């Protein structure tokens, strides 16, 4: 039961970390390497609003997510748009932006272990004899809710449908009057907001550090490679595969082998199915 519960938590955490990255790539074919930086930006911004400005916790979270969402859109509109269509330049530019954001925090002295966000609800509960804190249960709830909302958004709203249309066939959707740069701005803004939501629910488990940004980016890439870049269902498959693999490795082999298992999965995926578990490039309806 331990393994099931904590495996589920670990998987949802990975899915949340990767969801913003996957959404942006799925829609705009842009690998946003600033993803991890936006994640910690929300963490630090929430901390600052809460502890320095005096805004309440919910207000701080909302303000931070809105701010990072706007920033995501601005990053595309004024920076990434200039290197659009050049994948290597897109990666270099977004990585540079990410490093600049993260190292800015380090430079300004955000390096103490005391930068932490409080959990939404304190305390723990026993489920089938396994003690688990409320924050982890909230993560599961938020993760599942996000997935459901995203499905509804991309299948039942005009903007969501336009995002899927661009992802499926850019030229055909342009002929239908959908503006690709506008949808890319929306996808960056939404992807950034998703990284922000992931940050505010996951960061209360530990503390906010600059290194967390690099770790989140690495995890997001690992999940997307295994699950399949551009595939929304693949994100879940990758996250659950890695999440349970890590927990099972810790339980039966040893926690020091967790990273080895992750790398092994990446290597095997790249050898056996380079597009990822569900990254079926031709089955466009799977995307977004």
């Amino acid at each position: 039961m331990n393994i099931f519960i904590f495996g589920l938590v670990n998987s949802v955490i990975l899915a949340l970390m990767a969801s913003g990255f996957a959404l942006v790539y799925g829609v705009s074919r842009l690998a946003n390497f600033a993803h991890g930086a936006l994640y910690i930006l929300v963490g630090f911004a929430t901390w600052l609003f809460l502890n320095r400005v005096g805004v309440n916790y919910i207000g701080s979270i909302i303000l931070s997510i809105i701010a990072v969402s706007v920033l995501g859109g601005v990053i595309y509109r004024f920076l990434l748009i200039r290197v659009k269509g050049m994948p290597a330049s897109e990666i270099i530019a977004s990585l540079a932006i990410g490093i600049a954001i993260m190292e800015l925090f380090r430079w300004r002295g955000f390096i103490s272990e005391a930068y932490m966000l409080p959990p939404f609800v304190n305390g723990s509960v026993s489920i089938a004899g396994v003690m688990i804190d409320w924050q982890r249960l909230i993560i599961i709830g938020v993760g599942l809710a996000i997935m459901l909302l995203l499905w509804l958004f991309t299948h039942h709203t005009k903007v969501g449908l336009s995002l899927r249309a661009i992802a499926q066939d850019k030229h055909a959707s342009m002929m239908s009057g959908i503006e690709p740069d506008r949808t890319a701005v929306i996808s960056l803004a939404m992807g950034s907001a998703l990284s922000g939501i992931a940050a505010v629910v996951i960061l209360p488990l530990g503390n906010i550090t600059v290194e967390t940004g690099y770790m989140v980016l690495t995890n997001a890439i690992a999940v997307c490679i295994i699950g399949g870049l551009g595939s929304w269902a693949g994100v879940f498959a990758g996250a659950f595969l890695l999440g349970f693999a890590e927990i099972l490795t810790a339980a039966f082999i040893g926690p020091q082998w967790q990273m080895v298992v992750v790398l092994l999965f990446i290597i095997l995926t790249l050898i056996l199915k380079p597009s990822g578990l569900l990254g079926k490039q031709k089955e466009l309806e799977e995307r977004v």
Partner: protein
Amino acid sequence: MKKSALIDLIGIKMLFILLILLFACVLSPALSFSQPIVLGVPISRGYPDGVDAERGITLAVEEINAAGGVNVGGAKRPFKVEISDTRDLEAGVPVAEALLATERLIIEQKANFIVGGPIRSEAALAAMDVVSKHKTVSILSAGVLSPAYSKRVEENYDKYKYCFRTTGSVVPMIGGTLKTFESIKAKKGFDKAYIMVQDVAHARAAGNLLKEGLEKQGWKVLALEIYPTGTTDFSVGLSKAKDSKAQILIPWFDMPEVSILMKQWFDMKIPALPIGYIHALQDEGTWKATDGKVAYAVVLYAKAGSVATKAIPMSEGFVPNHKKKFGVEPRSEWTSTSYTVVYILKDAIERAKSLNPDTIIPALEKTDMMGTYGRVKFDPKNHQIIENGDPKETAVGMWAQWIDGKRTIVFPDKIATKSLEMPPWMK
């Protein structure tokens, strides 16, 4: 007025001004133009350990300068701090960066001494050659727990005689730790331990030494688990510790994510007391940041001084002065060691009456003074600080337990201010 008379008048005025300045300098050393003693501080400024060391050095230098400076053979000279960012704690930054930063301090900033870092063992070991090449005395006061440092000095004294270390070495540190566990066994009757260490060299070495030492003491070591740096979930290990009826958890981590371990331990109500080297929990702000979930955790500080104790008088002045200047109590042990290192140097310079390494080295070897962590003495063979005894005789580490939002010293017994407490779910 004639031209010659005007020149005389200006000359007399200038003479008066010079005389006034001369008197001012004699009467007030603070105004003197004596050349400062430059302390080169190579540290990783982007990490808490570097900031902690910088704060300790800055505070001590300000205190010493305010009191008139250092008496070098009758002349009062102030300390001047030059800091260079080594970035040695940052992942992926090559050791060469730290070496360049250290050498820059010696060549460009004309540092008379190197104090503080580099902090990472690999960088500090490599920097031994740099400081020795330039015949610049260096006293490490942050990080670097590798036994290799003092071993190199002992094996090649003539080459590395310029290198001193006050931070400690993992071997005596484990010795002190084992004494603490012996005391816990005797007082609480515990005999089942669960070791969880970070996957870095010093922690793995500590884990193996602890396992071996504890088993010799009659403990049953249920597991020695190694966690990769950056691990964010410890639930499986904690569940295993609970199921195997462990009574103490021994975490040995210097990564910030270890706060997750403590929060999970608290939330899962694991009936095993965490007691170990949990670097991220040393900070005074940890209680508030974790909503008190560090309660009952016992944290090792490689050197005492971050919490004031009557048993070490210098700590009673240092802690409030630090809080006054920086708004917080000293965070990690490296603030205490870096504060004391400046006083160690002042003491040695004043006894040597010179800045010459040939006279400073023997003076440092004969150091015998009280610091913020007990008596400071170096082993003259390997330039390692002597530790783990009575604070009146040697340097000591400290075990602080988080109780009611404060860090209270519970071990070693000679400096303890309270006895060990158990969490309610273990009573």
